[in-house]
């Protein structure tokens, strides 16, 4: 889309200066502290991020009873694991997991804005927030998935979850074949944010 529009050459430098000016003024006026923004960013480096979701998914793969508990009562099942504080915190107060299997492929979307399960996935990637994905994902999810490199066979149901109220959804992707020898930590390392939103499959390690 952006090639339809003209932007000034200093587009990014201008925004960078403006946001720094805004932060400086807000600090001067006592609206925020000079350490406040960094406190937010640190939370998303250490506490809330896709590293949590990947552990949840890997545990669901190795423990079928846990997988069922995760689908039945997501917050309670998440609380069973040793994860950082705040798994029911901001934008994760009410989360729900849905699982891909041989019959169903799930795709998470937010057509109205960019609702995303912060504690387990961190912040949404650009593609999730882009208006073209949000426009097309509900009308032609299979075509959109194809553009992400995911082919869903016609006999497999596609379920699209539009995050329009309180629930923040995420996907338990299918475990790739030939991973029986991997540890839970090694499995977690295969799980990407995209696979937990439904626009990617999890690939087995190639080496």
């Amino acid at each position, binding site marked *: *889309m*952006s090639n339809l*529009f003209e932007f000034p050459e200093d587009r*990014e*430098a*201008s*925004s*960078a*200066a*403006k*946001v*720094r*000016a*805004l932060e*400086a*003024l*807000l*600090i001067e*006026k*006592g609206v*925020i*502290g*000079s350490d*406040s*923004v*960094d*406190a*937010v960013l640190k939370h998303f480096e250490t506490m*809330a991020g896709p590293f949590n979701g990947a552990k949840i998914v890997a545990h669901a793969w190795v423990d079928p009873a846990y997988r069922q508990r995760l689908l039945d009562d997501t917050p309670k099942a998440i609380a069973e694991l040793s994860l950082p504080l*705040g798994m*029911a*915190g*901001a934008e994760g*107060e009410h989360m729900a997991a849905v699982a891909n299997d041989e019959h169903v492929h799930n795709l998470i*979307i937010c*057509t*109205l804005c960019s609702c995303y399960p912060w504690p387990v996935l*961190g912040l949404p*990637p*650009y*593609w999730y927030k*882009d*208006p073209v994905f949000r*426009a097309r994902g*509900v*009308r032609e999810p299979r*075509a*959109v998935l194809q553009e*992400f490199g995911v082919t869903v066979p*016609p*006999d*497999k*149901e*596609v*379920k699209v979850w*539009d995050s*329009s*109220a*309180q*629930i923040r959804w995420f996907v338990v992707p299918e475990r790739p074949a030939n991973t029986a020898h991997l540890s839970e930590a090694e499995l977690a390392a295969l799980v990407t944010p995209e696979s937990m939103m439904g626009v990617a499959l999890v690939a087995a390690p190639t080496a």
Partner: protein
Amino acid sequence: MKLAHHLGGIENLGPVNTDTRVFVEPWEQRIFGIHTVMMAESAHLSAAGHAYPVDTLPTAFKNDWTWASLRTGAEDMNPFEYFKFRYYEKWLGGIAQFFVDQGYITAEELAEKTAHFRADPHAALPERPNPALSEQVNAYLQNGDSPHHENDAPPRFAAGDTVCVADPQAVDHTRLPGYLRNRRGVIDRVYPGQYSYFVSTGVDGIGQAMPVYRVAFDAADIWGPGKSEPNTTIYADLFEAYVQPAN
């Protein structure tokens, strides 16, 4: 009729952007951080389910600032600009304007300070840490702001009911995706208890605590047979105000 209310379903937009970066430019982190600090010190949190000491926080910020504030601003945008600007460019424009409109800063001092950092991008920020605010930021991020309310009042609909989505008068802000208006779906789940929303949306109908339903829609019922992909179900969580009996 606002673009952001009716984005879902628009055709002919070309390929999706598959960029997996959260922040496309380093500066975007700062506006995300400013917004999140504002949410953590929002005046409305003094009445939140989790008791936050925002009344006594050492901050000059005295407004409500929630997702509803940011969303209402985005919904108010010129539709061409909505497509033109990247996600955090919209945030920067909306949040900077909010601080000017509310009198925290003036447009002139923002322009002057922007020119200062444009000339010297690495000029230092003022050094004024606010440990109590950092503590509140962490408390808010870890405990959130749940809109859930315990309530035993029986919900109007039950799982399995066929319902019709309401078509309320369009206002500044809504949580009803436009493509669902007047469409028939089936209640898949009644969420326990009730859920409020940050603000009243007036005749649109939400704000006060009410039941929320997970409603399933056959894609063919939304887009029309022959205009939808096969074997596709769309689920949306809808506040009770948006749900009506099917006739």
